[in-house]
């Protein structure tokens, strides 16, 4: 009898030791929105590759842009008793119920990228994402330094009402408003597309008599900036020399434009962010303590000089 007890205790002890040392046996469920655009597929790919590198057993679910698919995936993760769940939410609302179910099952939930709107903030541990507002500020700060605080700016906004467009504009304006001689003289939406950026810049060129007195173009993403660069070249202007060009994303085509001296600076929206997200999750599993509700992934500024 006592022998049996001992055997039982040693098995339990061994199990505990195993559990203690095995950060790698962690199973994480990741519910991704879908694969629209250039950025998100790169993000998905990185999450899968980084999980492999860190020895995490990742259960990946692509919701194809539908919230009901995401809810289904999260419930499946709960049923499978994963150690933690990461959600890249498609929309901000409608998460209360499923997050409560996860909490009841004692499975911590983390958010990647977009936010959720829940009344009880303890339903998720932390949101890990880049800060659109900070990206705008960084672009503004670079421009303030490059123009020595005197600059008439034309702005190419993203899709009206979208979170990145709103926050990048706010962040940029927050910095620019610190300098009395910096102001946005024209601002229009290019819908985050190359075509849109080109059309708007063509109109700006005519409306401002060949960008006379304009010192910089700030675009909410690289695609619009690449369109603006084309429009300026076709009008016989020299982007980056006649007018400073700063934008956000740092996509491959923008790398080329920076190298060719047609743009000045681009703030990177990182897609390889698994290396920021996983350590937060695994550390929390080892040592569950209160985390800040928003953990910001740093944004890099890339300039033509740095190429």
């Amino acid at each position: 009898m006592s022998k049996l007890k001992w055997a039982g205790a040693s098995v339990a002890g061994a199990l505990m030791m195993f559990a203690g040392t095995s950060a790698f046996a962690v199973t994480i469920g990741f519910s991704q929105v879908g694969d629209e655009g250039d950025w998100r597929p790169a993000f998905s790919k990185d999450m899968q590759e980084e999980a492999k590198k860190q020895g995490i057993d990742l259960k990946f679910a692509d919701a194809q842009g539908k919230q009901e698919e995401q809810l289904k995936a999260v419930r499946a993760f709960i049923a499978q008793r994963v150690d933690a769940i990461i959600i890249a939410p498609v929309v901000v609302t409608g998460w209360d119920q499923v997050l409560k179910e996860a909490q009841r099952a004692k499975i911590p939930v983390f958010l990647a990228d977009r936010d959720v709107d829940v009344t009880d903030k303890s339903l998720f541990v932390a949101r890990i994402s880049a800060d659109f507002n900070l990206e705008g500020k960084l672009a503004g700060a670079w421009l303030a330094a490059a123009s020595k605080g005197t600059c008439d700016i034309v702005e190419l906004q993203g899709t009206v009402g979208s979170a990145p467009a709103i926050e990048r504009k706010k962040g940029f304006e927050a910095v620019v408003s610190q300098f009395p001689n910096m102001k946005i003289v024209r601002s229009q939406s290019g819908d985050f597309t190359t075509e849109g950026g080109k059309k708007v810049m063509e109109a700006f060129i005519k409306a401002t008599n060949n960008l006379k007195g304009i010192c910089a173009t700030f675009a909410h993403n690289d695609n619009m900036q690449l369109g603006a660069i084309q429009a300026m070249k076709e009008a016989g202007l020299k982007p980056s020399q006649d007018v400073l060009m700063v934008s956000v994303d740092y996509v491959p085509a923008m790398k080329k434009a920076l190298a060719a001296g047609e743009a000045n600076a681009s703030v990177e929206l990182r897609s390889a962010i698994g290396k920021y997200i996983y350590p937060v999750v695994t550390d929390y599993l080892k040592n569950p303590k209160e985390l800040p509700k928003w953990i910001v992934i740093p944004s890099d500024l890339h300039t033509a000089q740095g190429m």
Partner: protein
Amino acid sequence: MRALTGHRATWPLLALVVILIVDGIIAPGFFAIRIVEGRLFGTPIDILYRAMPIALIALGMAVVIGSKGIDLSVGSIVAVVGATIAWRIKAGDPHFVILLTALAVGILCGMWNGFLVAVLNIQPIIATLILMVSGRGIGLMINLIYGGTDPSFESPLLQGLSVGSIGYVPTRLILFAGLFVALWLLIRRTALGLFIESVGGNAAAANLAGINARLITFSVYVISGLCTAWAGIILTADVHTSDPVSVALFSELDAILAVVIGGGSLAGGRIYLGMTLLGALVIQTLATSILMSGLPPEYNLLVKAVVVLFVLLLQSNNARDAVFTLFRRRKG
């Protein structure tokens, strides 16, 4: 006076003139044209230049609508054509071959629509909805063939056709003029236009009169596919990148609007090519005016809606009569 108010071109032209007068007031130098980088340069040129893709799509749409059909898939066809161009350029095909491939892709898409409508007898709005929904996905899949992380490309031939110029005139205007004349001859100088209009007016009667309604219906979607492919080449070469998710987004609606502003009826039976071009010019003039005006972008859609409503009211006999009667009563 009666002949003037009666002519169908009068009211859209009047709308265009009103928009241009407003532009002239709010944006000084609106009508200035000069030579920059060896080609004509100025806002009026921009309007013509930017109107070309929608005008091309709208011409095809006018023919389809003339047959009492509708083609919702045009934006998606542009996406597929664009993705194909980027893919074949990365694959290293000769650019002349790529040009033909792009046109062939458009024709193929048109044949698919035509097959669904004419052979399977699916209602046009549903039949073309299938390609409208799937086309951008197909474009994304084509992008994936070569990785798709950097779909930008360089092509002197295609860019020459889109953003180049012959003499001082942008190439796309010259090519559009050629295509317009060819289509006009096909519709108005052969029996085809009459056949399409009679099928649009009453397909059963046309059939009894010995017209192969099925073949005519099939052919209008192919014409639309071809016109749209040309627009796709212009749009893709314009920005030399492939962006299937957002290229020519909502262009089907602008194209339908151009046909309607041009006096076309969704009930079919009439094809007005010149008027459709006028409709496309009204839409683009409005778009360019909004960009020039310096209004915050939150107002773009609202301004467009109000002006379009104004143009359509101008064209409506009932609305005009109501206004005239109101004035007469006041006087009396």
